[in-house]
């Protein structure tokens, strides 16, 4: 499966405390990520594919694979919808 990569030309990001704040460069709107979504965002590095991201998450969140898989797929769908993932 292809590695997951972000469209870095479409956003700016900043770590503030435990949150990641992401701003869309085309609209200026921003949103914050924390917990699982922040962990997924950090794991999308252009090297790992979905399975590798899931494996890392499952390790980090102590094996709750079913819940983590659901969170991952929902978050990836949201990022695709926002145009933040390389197709």
């Amino acid at each position: 499966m292809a590695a997951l990569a972000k469209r870095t030309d479409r956003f700016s990001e900043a770590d503030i405390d435990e949150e990641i704040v992401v701003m869309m460069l085309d609209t200026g709107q921003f949103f914050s990520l924390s917990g699982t979504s922040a962990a997924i965002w950090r794991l999308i590095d252009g090297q790992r594919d979905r399975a590798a991201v899931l494996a890392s998450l499952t390790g980090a969140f102590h094996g709750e694979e079913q819940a983590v898989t659901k969170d991952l797929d929902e978050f990836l769908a949201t990022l695709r919808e926002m145009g933040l993932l390389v197709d």
Partner: protein
Amino acid sequence: MDRSAAELMMQRETAVQYGPVPHSLSGEPLAEMSWQMLGGAFLLRGEGEHYFLYRKGDGVTVERGPDADVSEESLWLNGSVYAAVASLNGLLPIHASAVAHDGRVFAFSGPAGAGKSTLVAALGRHGLPLFCDDTLVLDLSDPERIVCLPGHKRLKLRPDAIGLTGAMPQEKVSKTVDKHYALPATGEVGVALPLGELIFLEERPEPAIMPITGAERLVRLQDDHYTARLFDSARKFDRAAQFAHLARLARQIAMARFVRPLDRDRFDEGVALAARHVAQPRS
């Protein structure tokens, strides 16, 4: 006492001379009570034919037409003109009043009428000296810390606030402004100091102070005060640069919300809470 490079720059760049100035920078007519910023220059028109021109390296030139209200002149110079000079020289003016404690600045921000000046004046009764009133100028030149320039404006209070705060009233600010200059009870600090905390004032039934964390810190920095508009106009950041600027401030500035009732009978309770918060031991 040594003054910082930013303080010396502001002293030099805000030196005032009098004489004729152009009445537009852009070619478009400049309406009363409005300004233009172009090519490192700033032109403000007050009431009537009262113009203030700043050009980098040349200081400020004031043209007083026959109908200029001279009693308002220092308000323009210390308000929009000072903030524009700061902005055009890389400093960040923010809408806040502040006190100093233990070598750090504690600034209170909020919209007009939120009680910033009244609160910092009242904190003087708790031994906290005034650092600035209404506008706090930040020096961002050191990437590791944010330094505040000491206030350039005299404390201004409404007549009812003078009684509440224990400040000593002085002359009236101007013919049209219902405020008096005042001397704070514990005096003022006149040296540049690092910023300790930025505290936002809000009205709620019960006094409390709560930290602001994460993305909310960045959101709180989005301000529509005239000082922010002048800074934006001077810096002309694109979206990415503006975001990076706000993110840096959000990471480096500790922030809190100070909520309290706007009730004269409970004013002292809120002030005491703020004084304890400022004076608490910090790392």
